[in-house]
């Protein structure tokens, strides 16, 4: 029997980790993810888990220790935010190229410049090409559910890639919401035992990891990594289906909200989707055919499926909570537009940058976006495709 509770996103993730009881958790605090290791430390101290909790001296070291622990045969993880994730930039690539199952609980926060502790996606967007799987959550329930599913995806023999489970800093990580928690046994059985095939501490064979790959081999290694990423979507769907069987909650690449007959749509990641859905409900009441797509799996990017979901739409607004300084929009915008182009979509697409450094996005802001899209449709022209939302110009 599932239990109902009220938890913040951080508490939900820490609780899921308690239920999983992983082998090794190297940790370094950074706002707003600090509560995850902090709550977990209490579980360790009270004997509720027997994880090796290693309080390292930096995020470069937390990721490095997690990588090496995974190579040694352990189920490992760490958690971070913002500059901590940026500090891990180097080892992130090592984790994925070593094909190590590994979990990183990311609590999204703006990158410094100016220093800011609030939510945007510049941290995880900055490492979107590091070879990690990325799942994003709208709320605490999804953060919990994604975390329970993460190891099953990451450890799948066809995948063996590290996975980031992201939630929005403060908005999700600190706000307390209702949540449905699975029974400990149900989580334990769902996640299962980790049985690595090759590992450093295997008594039957020695293993060397971290080779120097010269030009004769480097490209094949990267190609093999890309092949593993190609295997991810089917595994994500399979794990999502199994998860639905124990929880009643279904998960795929993205969530379609009132998209059946929509002629205008917003594509967004994270907590802002909840606000967007409110705007959709409001506009639907006055007969407007609007819908929303919330991307859950951003890496690998479900380009074909997403273009399919946007098939009947006349105009799309892609909302990015990160700049990419291409002078034409954000990362999600670039990916969605490329997907539409590949699918020879006739939809007109615009890209908005919103919510940087924790700037609020309101139902009114979303209503404005749908209004802008109506104008795009009327004019049969996207106009300026690179726009800002909620900024003082």
């Amino acid at each position, binding site marked *: 029997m599932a239990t109902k509770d009220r938890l913040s996103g951080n508490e939900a993730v820490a609780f899921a980790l308690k239920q999983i009881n992983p*082998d*090794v958790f*190297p940790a370094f605090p950074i706002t707003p993810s600090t509560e995850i290791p902090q709550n977990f430390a209490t579980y360790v101290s009270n004997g509720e888990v*027997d*994880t*090796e909790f*290693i*309080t*390292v*001296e*930096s995020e*470069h*070291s*937390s990721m*490095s*220790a*997690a*990588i*090496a*622990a*995974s*190579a*040694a*045969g*352990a189920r*490992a993880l760490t958690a971070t935010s913002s500059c901590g994730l940026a500090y891990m930039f*180097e*080892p992130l690539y*090592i984790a994925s190229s*070593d094909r190590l199952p590994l979990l990183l609980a990311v609590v999204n926060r703006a990158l410094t410049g100016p220093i800011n502790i609030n939510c945007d996606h510049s941290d995880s967007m900055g490492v979107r090409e590091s070879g990690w799987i990325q799942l994003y959550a709208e709320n605490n329930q999804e953060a919990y559910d994604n975390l329970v599913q993460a190891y099953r995806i990451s450890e799948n023999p066809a995948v063996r890639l590290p996975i980031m489970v992201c939630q929005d800093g403060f908005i999700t990580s600190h706000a307390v919401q209702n949540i449905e928690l699975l029974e400990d046994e149900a989580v334990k059985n769902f996640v299962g035992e980790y049985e690595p095939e090759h590992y*450093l*501490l*295997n*008594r039957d064979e*020695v*293993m*060397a*990891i*971290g*080779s*120097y*790959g*010269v030009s004769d*081999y480097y490209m094949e*290694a990267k190609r093999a990594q890309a092949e593993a990423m190609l295997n991810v979507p089917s595994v994500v769907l399979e794990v999502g289906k199994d998860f639905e069987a124990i929880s009643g909650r279904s998960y795929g690449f993205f969530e379609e909200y009132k998209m059946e007959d929509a002629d205008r749509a917003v594509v967004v990641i994270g907590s802002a989707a909840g606000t967007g859905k409110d705007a959709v409900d409001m506009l639907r009441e006055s007969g407007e055919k609007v819908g929303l797509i919330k991307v859950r799996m951003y890496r690998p990017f479900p380009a074909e499926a997403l273009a399919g979901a946007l098939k009947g739409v006349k105009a799309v607004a892609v909302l990015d909570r990160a700049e990419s300084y291409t002078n034409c929009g954000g990362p999600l915008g670039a990916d969605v537009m490329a997907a539409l182009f590949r699918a020879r979509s006739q939809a007109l697409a615009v890209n908005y940058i919103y919510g940087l450094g924790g700037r609020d996005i309101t139902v009114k802001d979303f209503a404005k976006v749908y209004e802008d899209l109506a104008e795009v449709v009327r004019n049969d022209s996207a106009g300026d495709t690179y726009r800002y939302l909620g900024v003082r110009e």
Partner: protein
Amino acid sequence: MDYNFKETMNKPERLAPGHRMCAGCGGTIAVRNVLRGLHEGDKAVIGNATSCLEVSTLMYPYSAWEDSYVHTAFANAGASMAGVEGAYKALKKRGKIDDTYKFITFGGDGGTYDIGLQSLSGAMERNHDMVYVCYDNGAYMNTGIQRSSATPMYADTTTTPAGTVGHGKEQNRKDLAAIIAAHNIPYVAQTTFVQNFKDLHIKAEKAIYTPGAAFLNVMAPCPRGWRYNTPDIMEICKLAVDTCYWPLFEVIDGEWVLNYEPKKKLPIEDFLRPQGRFKHLFEPGNEELVARIQEETDRRWEALKARCK
């Protein structure tokens, strides 16, 4: 402690021949002799910071390592081995493994004194049951002989070239063994290739079998960077010790022990002269520079002796 040279040298090699390190490299001599400190039958996981040693011993698809081996990056050898040791404790606790493993990680002075110092300091402070071995050749040799904080004063390197105005590296070398000793870990030692490797062997064995964190600083000459006649490596090491440039000592649970005091302390010139990196010091008018090195060597030697009393 008993030491049988022949017996020790005849132990099975744990770093196989066929790797791509230079002929006469001090790094591999350090590694092979540290690993001789492992008792037969005991398993080990060897770690490595990015270095000459790493790129030359683990070039895909080959490995020169007889034990399990892990390399992740340049700056994190301490943290990486901490992760392996954490995994060992976790898997042992959960009954998934029952063998005895030892954890030994190697870094050059660039990876240890400089870019990896934070990670090393963290691993030492947390007192993981591991040995960190610095093979100190006094410069970034892998990238082509750039100065490090281990480079001795006035050495000619590619980023501190001796020129018409510059005399080589202007600063003193960092005293890393003392810095690690200040972490109050169970065992710290400094050694090099002398006395038929007796000093190194004994210290390696102690470091490996002392529970908790241990650190070995091994002077490992680099014939390319130091520019001495390659076969003279043992003579160079002896001169380093007899001039008191590289003293042999241990810090056991905070107690400083001097392991060797030369009967006749040789002038520093004897250590500097055979090395091309100090050649400019012996040009007329540079006598003052040699005198300064002598002064600094003496000052450090006296300070060490005072600590060891």
